[in-house]
């Protein structure tokens, strides 16, 4: 059955606004039409949303939804394979519980797509993937897998390995060395593998090195957790040495070196927002970070790092960024199209355009206002969450 959503003000996510627009979704969950409210096909179910606002389904590009418990204690922690500092062979896909209540929280927040990453206690943590936020079988929810290899700098690896387990890495130098060694080995592996392939000889596959190989071949980026400005610079230095793509996850001190990051065409995943500064490496946290980074040409996406900011509150976080000076359209872009592009899934989602998935959130009023709360969330043309007031 076709779905015709009529009467709402539509932010397409490409900078266009359609007053009293219409969005037509097909049986297959794709957008058939988006534009002025015109004739609706006879066989369409009509949803009248006059006075409401529609925005593209939000994309939270850095979460631990379904893999990090929310009020369940240690048994639900599956995001850090913390025994070994380099665990490139693991994949977040194999640790996610798709029926976890955090997916419900994501839908409540208007989020239709998340990237799920391993945690940040390992300098090389494992593979990430992107999925929709409704479903019961994770494989059916996946949009793209893998979307990156997680890395981490700074306090977390130092704490988990050096302090807790009395082994390397115990310092920032040790972390950098572990990452560098990993990519050097992956480079050797690549040479050996290519040689064996050419000669048609047997070659023993190593799943850890295969992950490294994907990064070296620039099929996926290295997604590096870095808060402090020097950690960010170190991450860029190492990625430059190996000529690999990267994104800076958190990028807390980014505004202090925004010029440098702009020149390097950095992708910054900024968040979690609303944060307090409990650790030394987050002492520089600023609500203006994303604003300053954007002004310097850094490709900026906002992230919740769920559960650290519950993904339910994604829009509230974006409101604060808007408050500190990022324009409404740019703020919207930082939670929709920019993360879609950063994850390489913009063909399917991130804006409301013909041929893309009919993923959208219905707001009660303008985005980033009290009225603009999420009233319902749609994935591929189907309502997956609706607000019932308490």
């Amino acid at each position: 059955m076709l779905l015709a959503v009529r009467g709402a003000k539509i932010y397409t996510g490409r900078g266009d606004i359609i007053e009293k627009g219409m969005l037509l979704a097909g049986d297959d969950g794709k957008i058939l039409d988006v534009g002025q409210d015109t004739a609706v096909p006879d066989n369409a179910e009509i949803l009248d949303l006059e006075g409401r606002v529609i925005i593209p389904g939000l994309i939270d590009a850095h979460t631990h939804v379904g893999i990090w418990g929310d009020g369940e204690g240690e048994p639900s922690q599956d995001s850090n394979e913390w025994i070994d500092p380099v665990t490139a062979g693991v994949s977040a896909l194999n640790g996610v519980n798709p029926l976890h209540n955090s997916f419900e929280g994501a839908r409540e927040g208007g989020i239709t797509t998340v990237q799920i990453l391993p945690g940040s206690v390992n300098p090389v943590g494992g593979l990430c993937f992107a999925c929709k936020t409704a479903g019961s079988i994770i494989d059916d929810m996946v949009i793209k897998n893998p979307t990156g290899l997680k890395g981490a700098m700074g306090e977390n690896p130092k704490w988990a390995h050096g302090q807790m387990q009395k082994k390397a890495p115990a310092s920032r130098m040790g972390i950098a060395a572990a990452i560098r060694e990993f990519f050097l080995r992956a480079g050797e592996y690549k040479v050996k593998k290519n040689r064996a392939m050419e000669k048609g000889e047997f070659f023993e596959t190593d799943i850890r090195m295969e992950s490294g190989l994907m990064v070296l071949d620039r099929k996926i980026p290295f997604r590096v957790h870095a808060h402090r400005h020097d950690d960010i610079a170190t991450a860029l230095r190492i990625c430059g040495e190996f000529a690999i793509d990267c994104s800076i996850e958190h990028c807390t001190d980014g505004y202090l070196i925004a010029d440098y990051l702009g020149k390097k065409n950095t992708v910054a995943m900024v968040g979690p927002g609303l944060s307090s500064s409990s650790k030394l490496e987050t002492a520089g946290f600023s609500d203006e970070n994303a604003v300053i980074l954007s002004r310097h040409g850094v490709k900026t996406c906002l992230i919740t790092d769920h559960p650290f900011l519950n993904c339910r509150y994604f829009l509230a976080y974006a409101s604060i960024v808007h408050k500190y000076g990022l324009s409404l359209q740019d703020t919207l872009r930082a939670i929709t199209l920019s993360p879609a592009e950063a994850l390489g899934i913009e063909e399917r989602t991130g804006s409301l355009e013909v041929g893309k998935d009919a993923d959208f959130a219905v707001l009660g009023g303008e985005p980033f206002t009290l009225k603009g709360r999420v009233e319902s969330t749609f994935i591929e043309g189907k309502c997956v969450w609706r607000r019932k007031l308490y």
Partner: protein
Amino acid sequence: MLAIVNARLITVADGIIENGAVLLKDKRIVSLGRDIAIPDNCRKIDAIGRPVTPGLIDAHTHAGISEHGIDWAGNDTNEGTNPVNPFCRVKDGINMKDRAFDKLRKAGITCIGVLPGSSNILGGAGLALKCTGIIVDEAIVKDPIGIKAALGENPKKCYGKNNQSPATRMGNAAVLRESLLKAKQYLEKKQSSKEPALDMKWEALLPVIKKEIPLFIHCHRHDDIVTAVRICREFDVRFALEHVTDGHLIADFLKKHQVHCAVGPTLYYGSKVENRDRSFKTPVQFDRKKIPFCFITDHPVVDARNLALTAGMAVQWGMSEESALRAITLGSAEHIGINDRVGSLEAGKDADLVIWSGNPLEFTSFADMTIINGDTVYERGNRPCY
């Protein structure tokens, strides 16, 4: 003397006055209204129609005692060496130069409750202070406001995991009951003996036994909340509840007991099992059922600059703006017993107020100017914020 004129005065106590003025003198509000007399020599600030509210109050924080970006060296929240430490005083651990105070002023928060942490069954005395100055003694509004107590996971974790008591919820309750019993007997002995031996521990609990100050009891889970009420009724002491995460499940029970509840930090993540069911259901239901409550951030658990945002989110879940604003001003003042001095715009109250760029509950509004005791302690400029 200072007058703020041409303001939308949201008094909290008595409605909204459009085009109003408020006159401040000697650290107090002298008068407010539409047609009040303003002396000629008085300095004036034109609010240009902007909203003016009482300074916001966060009734439960660890500002200054769990410091910004410092970790253990700046964390003096829990004297976690003995589960019964009622003689500890937060006053002795607060660093007024903690960067939290800059953020508080910037967020329009003029007054806070500071409490010890929740590792101990009895953690020590909390106080209320103004967010200004460098000498804590000079910032105090009321000290003590009450003694901090805790039930549930935190004491269990701090002591039980090291094979010390308490290791269970039963143990938590037993330690609390035994302490109150001992303090009661200490009072009886003290009154009947000519030269009573001093015991600092029980001496510190006497104001609670005498019903001069309340216990502030950390409790998230519904059964912990009920245990808190049970024990306080048994010993006939005054009390208020902190966090009250599961409150919506037992709202009628709380209504019957007319307990004052400090709700939050709702924006926090599920760090433990007992705070799993955090949502705006609890404050929205409390408001509907007229259970006295306020919002807290538990700073730095949730950063206190999100206090107004928390109230705004409750509005998104159906609470009236009036109730939501009350729960971060007058409701907070009532919770920690300082509503005679702060929490609303009323003649005679302290000159603590905020000029806002727009509706104070809107996520995009700024506190344009924060005034404490009649002095401007923050004015919005173009400085970077952290």
